[in-house]
């Protein structure tokens, strides 16, 4: 991050920086936060992931898209330490993270969410949030027995949690059990909880899956707000239309490999992408665009189909 005292406009900065990046798979970025090399993961004889080179630009929203079974979530699991690669190496902020345990990956500033929301159902919303915080001395068993040791930090954490809950419009659910929230609210809670540790990079696995259309717009707004605050966002999605609205850069995967990269407008026109989506699954519905503001429906399914 720059040391300038004035706030940086990360949105236009990302657009400016990515403007001249080559539109080829594995393109080199001006300021990559995450760099992965020859990452593979085999399940039996099948290569679920086979990524030769990938760079993710700092302070930008990068979307990782691809048809079902393209290996997006598997790649996510590998990078965040939830799965072990068959081979490969990657660095996050210059430090190697290959083979590092998931908890340590999270502590190094890369926090993820899950495709199937993992709200902790039998805990209240505020307890969920507090759990996301770092540097709480009371999480040590012996310190836990002496409340004065951890109560000051607990108050800080609670204030931070309430601020985030207010931002995500969950403050009135503060003392409800997380299990009583709707699916979309749980997605919001999971995202808010991930932000408690103030991560430098947040990895969202299908943030829109199962979210009702009314909440979609506000979720998109939250993701953009994260980037505008200087957090790097990498998210998995297979609804291409949603991707176009918010991402600065799009990486397309198919059958485990990266087949295309580029800004959202141009990548959709890439023959390799059309092939990946429409060639194999030409009858697949790529998502409903009509509920989102912005341009009218489906340039892909309509005009671009061969």
């Amino acid at each position, binding site marked *: 991050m720059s040391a300038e005292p004035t706030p940086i406009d990360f949105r236009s900065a990302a657009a400016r920086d990515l403007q001249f990046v080559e539109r080829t798979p594995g393109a080199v970025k001006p300021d990559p936060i995450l760099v992965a090399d020859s990452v593979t993961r085999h399940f039996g004889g099948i290569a679920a992931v086979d990524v030769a080179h990938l760079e993710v630009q700092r302070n930008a929203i990068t979307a990782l898209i691809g048809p079902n079974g393209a290996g997006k979530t598997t790649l996510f699991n590998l990078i965040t330490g939830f799965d072990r690669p068959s081979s490969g190496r990657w660095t996050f902020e210059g430090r190697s993270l290959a083979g590092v345990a998931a908890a340590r990956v*999270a502590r190094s500033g890369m926090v993820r969410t899950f495709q199937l929301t993992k709200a902790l159902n039998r805990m209240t919303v505020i307890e969920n949030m507090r*759990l996301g915080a770092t540097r709480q001395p009371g999480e040590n068993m012996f310190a836990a027995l002496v409340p004065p040791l951890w109560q000051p930090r607990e108050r800080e954490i609670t204030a931070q949690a309430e601020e985030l809950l207010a931002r995500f419009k969950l403050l009135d659910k503060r003392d409800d059990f997380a299990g009583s929230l709707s699916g979309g609210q749980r997605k919001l809670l999971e995202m808010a909880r991930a932000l408690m540790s103030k991560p430098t990079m947040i990895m969202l696995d299908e943030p829109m899956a199962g979210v009702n259309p009314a909440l979609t717009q506000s979720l998109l707004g939250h993701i953009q707000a994260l980037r505008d605050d200087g957090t790097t966002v990498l998210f998995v999605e297979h609804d291409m239309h949603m991707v176009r609205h918010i991402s600065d850069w799009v990486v397309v995967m198919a059958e485990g490999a990266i087949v295309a990269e580029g800004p959202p407008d141009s990548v959709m026109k890439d023959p390799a992408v059309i092939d990946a989506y429409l060639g194999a699954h030409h009858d697949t519905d790529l998502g409903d665009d009509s509920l989102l503001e912005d341009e009218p429906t489906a340039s892909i399914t309509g005009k671009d189909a061969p």
Partner: protein
Amino acid sequence: MDWTRILTNVLGEMLAPTTAAYALAAVGLNIHFGLTGLLNMGQAGFMLLGAYGFAIATIAGWPIWGAVLVAIAASALFALLLGIPTLKLRGDYLAIVTIAAAEIVRLIGRSTALTSLTGASSGLRGDSYKTTFQNLSPFPTGTTTIGPFSYSNNFSNSWWIRLVGWAIVLIACLFVYLLIRSPWGRVLKGIREDEEAVRSLGKNVFAYKMQSLVLGGVIGAVAGIVYVMPRAVQPDSMGRPMTFFVWTILLLGGAATVFGPVLGSIVFWAGLMLIKSVMRDGVSDSFISSGQIEQLGWVIVGVTLMLLVIFRPQGVLGDKKELAINVR
């Protein structure tokens, strides 16, 4: 029917050292299951190890605090040995491993190869390890009668073990009360709900599960010491049924609560005593023999507990709301 005698029996059972020992064992299991979601099916193994550790060390001439430390160390080591290979796996594996490990402890304890140390299947006589504990008692030798209860001050099934046993139960409850409200307890509850989510928030799940297993196991070992104080160390009386009684007590009182295990133990043993006393008095010998009453008592307790788990699954003290949420 002599109701005074029956009620005296029931009241006596409520305060018995055995009830305290089971309450304590359930407090330990509550840390495993109620807080962390670990399915420890071998709590009796921890108790037996605690009993052996204490008794063998005392017989070898160790002072009482040394013997207690031996019991604690043995159970902590046992927890580490169990946890290292299994805590990385899914929950049910721990259940299988712990039930097997508890059986291994019992079978090794009763094997003739160790007769000199453990007394094999006949166990260790109470007199051989009770003296250090009894010598600590501030009471004069003799028998005290309070109300309908008359026990020896210091020997075996005494007022002294009642006092110490229940004091330890209270301390353990205070301990759990502090932990359950702390950030440490919060991490454990998170692990109970979804350990992947907790891992994604940067917590070392394995270390927390290990701490929980060791802590609950150590409390179990102390419960084992309290349990054998009024009797003998008898490996076969501390087998699988004991584990299941501890589980029943925990679920009856309410998992993840502070006083649930204590209330569960009191209700369980008092209820059993009530059923057996009523049957002994009220049903003629020609209909059911006294041996059958013993068995039938367990049957009735079993049925009652089934009904309780079906109609009040959160236990007596559990939070209905916390349990009612449909967890997918």
